[in-house]
């Protein structure tokens, strides 16, 4: 309505300005070559590389060599969040305690044979007033919450073993449980409690020792065992790891064994605590659990894929009907965007959740927005009487500031969402942010390259129609 009034009166300065933008654009996408064959070669290369990556992504999914990583809500599994009780830990030891807690739980989970478990620590609670350290355990495929909790919370296995009679004592430190030791009659179940004590040593210093108290059954077994094996090495193993290998000096009839050795008061205390409460360096308390069955996850994946396909199809159809030829190219750019983002999902790798799939589908709708802005602008420039090449250049150059500014606002949201989110929402934020970045690239450079490569001079008639839009002929 106003354009025809506006453009004839634009003077030399703004023409210069426009060509400056156009030049910067051409330069930035590396297609400064003015020859048509150069533009077409670049377009062809983009197509071939894009199809190549697309084929790779497809085949690696079809053959299952590099499947997408699915979050627990899609693959099925259990997530447990624990709060670590750090009351007994001084603040400069917190990081150490948490990492050893993580290691212990990881070892335990691996022992259980869960495939690809994730065990991580997180600092949380700053916003609810009480700072706390958390432990997050994700167990794909475990859909029995109770079993998962039992697995994490189980007391470690304490084993007592005798050194084999023919074993070489010098190898004791590097031995594994089965090589040098044979099982003995007594087990961790027979232990009642363990405590730290200080015994009068040879000199004037007190020596830290760990005193084991067996229950009545264990006391009997232990009395027999020690009576028959004086002078032999006796090994104590926690989850298969040797913690102490003392020599039996005399028969012990009262069900109380003293482990002496090179203990510092701290290490003796730690051992006693481990024997009493399990081998966790800090006590943990269950805060939240989430379990999703495999079938429910499978349904979500299937529905997600369907929604993705329909969504992409509908958007391409809309672009085709409304923007005609440029719309087709926006469709090509959209396909290349999808290929690029799926390849990124594999490469990074991004753990996909239901929210992540929703973000991806949302990003498909947003990916063509840059194209809409550019094409509308192009149409305006064409109506202003420009040649199609000029209109393409100016359409891209002039739409850029608003594309840039609106995408920055989306990136701001994505970053804040990533900070806000629980692990499931983080999946949304990551996909959303990646989608905004990648789609800006594909929507602008790809569709521009292709439009120029076609080299249509929209001076009138049919080619004019191709560049038109909506209800206008």
């Amino acid at each position, binding site marked *: 309505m106003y354009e025809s009034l506006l453009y004839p009166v634009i003077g030399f300065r703004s023409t210069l300005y426009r060509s400056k933008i156009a030049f910067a654009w051409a330069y930035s996408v590396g297609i400064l070559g003015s020859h048509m064959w150069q533009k077409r070669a670049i377009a062809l290369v983009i197509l071939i590389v894009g199809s190549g990556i697309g084929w790779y992504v497809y085949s690696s999914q079809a053959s299952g060599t590099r499947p997408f990583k699915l979050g627990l809500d899609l693959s099925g599994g259990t997530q447990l969040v624990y709060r670590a009780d750090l009351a007994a830990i001084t603040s400069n030891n917190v990081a150490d305690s948490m990492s050893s807690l993580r290691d212990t739980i990881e070892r335990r989970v691996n022992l259980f044979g869960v495939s690809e478990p994730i065990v991580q620590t997180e600092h949380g609670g700053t916003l609810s007033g009480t700072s706390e350290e958390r432990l997050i355990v994700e167990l794909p495929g475990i859909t029995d919450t109770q079993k998962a909790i039992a697995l994490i919370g189980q007391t470690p296995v304490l084993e007592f073993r005798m050194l084999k009679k023919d074993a070489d004592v010098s190898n004791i430190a590097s031995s594994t449980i089965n090589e040098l030791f044979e099982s003995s009659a007594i087990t961790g179940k027979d232990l009642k409690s363990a405590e730290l004590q200080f015994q009068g040593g040879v000199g004037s210093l007190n020596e830290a020792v760990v005193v084991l108290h067996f229950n009545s059954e264990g006391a009997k077994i232990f009395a027999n065992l020690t009576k028959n094996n004086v002078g032999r090495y006796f090994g104590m193993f926690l989850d298969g790891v040797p913690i102490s290998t003392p020599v039996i000096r005399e028969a012990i009839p009262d069900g109380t064994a003293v482990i002496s050795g090179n203990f510092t008061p701290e290490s003796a205390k730690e051992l006693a605590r481990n024997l009493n409460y399990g081998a966790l360096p800090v006590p943990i308390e269950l805060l939240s659990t989430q379990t*999703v069955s495999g079938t*429910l996850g499978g349904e979500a994946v299937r529905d997600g894929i369907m929604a993705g396909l329909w969504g992409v199809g509908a958007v391409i159809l809309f672009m085709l009907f409304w923007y005609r030829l440029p719309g087709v190219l926006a469709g090509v750019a959209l396909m290349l965007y999808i290929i690029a983002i799926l390849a990124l999902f594999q490469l990074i790798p991004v753990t996909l959740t239901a929210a992540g799939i*929703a973000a991806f*589908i949302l990003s498909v709708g*947003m990916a*063509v927005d840059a194209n809409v802005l550019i094409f509308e602008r192009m149409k305006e420039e064409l109506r202003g009487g420009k040649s199609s090449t000029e209109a393409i250049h100016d359409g891209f150059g002039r739409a850029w500031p608003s594309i840039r*500014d609106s995408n920055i606002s989306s990136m701001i949201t994505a970053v804040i969402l990533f900070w806000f989110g629980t692990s499931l*929402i983080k999946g949304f934020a990551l996909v959303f942010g990646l989608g905004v970045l990648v789609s800006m690239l594909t929507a602008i450079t790809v569709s521009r390259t292709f439009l120029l490569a076609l080299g249509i001079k929209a001076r009138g008639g049919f080619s004019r129609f191709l560049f038109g839009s909506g209800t206008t002929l």
Partner: protein
Amino acid sequence: MFIVKHRNIFFAITGAITLVALASVFVFGLKLGLDFTGGTLVQATYPAGRPAPQALTESLDAAGFRGYSLREANTNDYVLRAGNMTPAMRETLTSTLSVGGASPAVVAQLTEVGPTIGVELRNKAFIALGLVMLCILLFIAFAFRKVSKPISSWVYGLIALVTLIHDVIVPVGFFAFLGYLTGAQIDTLFVTAILTILGFSIHDTIVVFDRTRENLRINEERNRKEDFSETAGRSLGQTFVRSINTSLTVLITLSVLYFVGPVSTKDFALTLLVGIIAGTYSSIFLATPLLVEVDKRRGNQKKK
């Protein structure tokens, strides 16, 4: 531009929409979900047909569940919302739901959230909301810093903020109504939807403002005298179609997500749909008219 000319009508419409949304929040109330309150959510599937509610209720009562709610879902499912379970309750959960073996149940989904996590998440949600708005305000004021005549770039930012507040109130009001209809509860996904709406609905506002910025520059270069309301109205007219089309493509994908997509993101898609429609409306019918209104008021003040 008729929208600018008749802006008072649109201010009235916007005000009415906002009031309806707020009324919905006050009448129906917002139901906070598990993520924020803590508690237990169980989805149990009964492959051999679900038991009568009464039998299940008795079994739950016997197991020590108090103050829970039970809702039928799909054809063979129950959804149970309850407070936090004791370890003993958790251990016997499957058999409790199976009514002692009478109707074998499979736990399809179990979520437990401790109360402290809920409080933390609630605070975090408010901070995230405030942070997004503040960052967008700062960003717009920065992006439009070169346009200070006749209106300072801060006004552009503040007006964008006003439209954002509108864009949040409408889907929140809608969700309160949805909660009344279907029992939908505010969870982290809802907060995600609101934050996403903020990030997206500002797009159209930026497009209109960007065109205003460009037209103001061209006017200055050409030494053309034009009333600000003319320039703003013209900019709005020029970007009208693209504002609608950019939203339309997103609405298309969101509708597909709602109708075809996973169950867990249905409410999410619906919230986004409502929010983005509100966002598109506000960037066309609220942002530019407000800009013109501010300019007019300032002009009047100067004349006095």
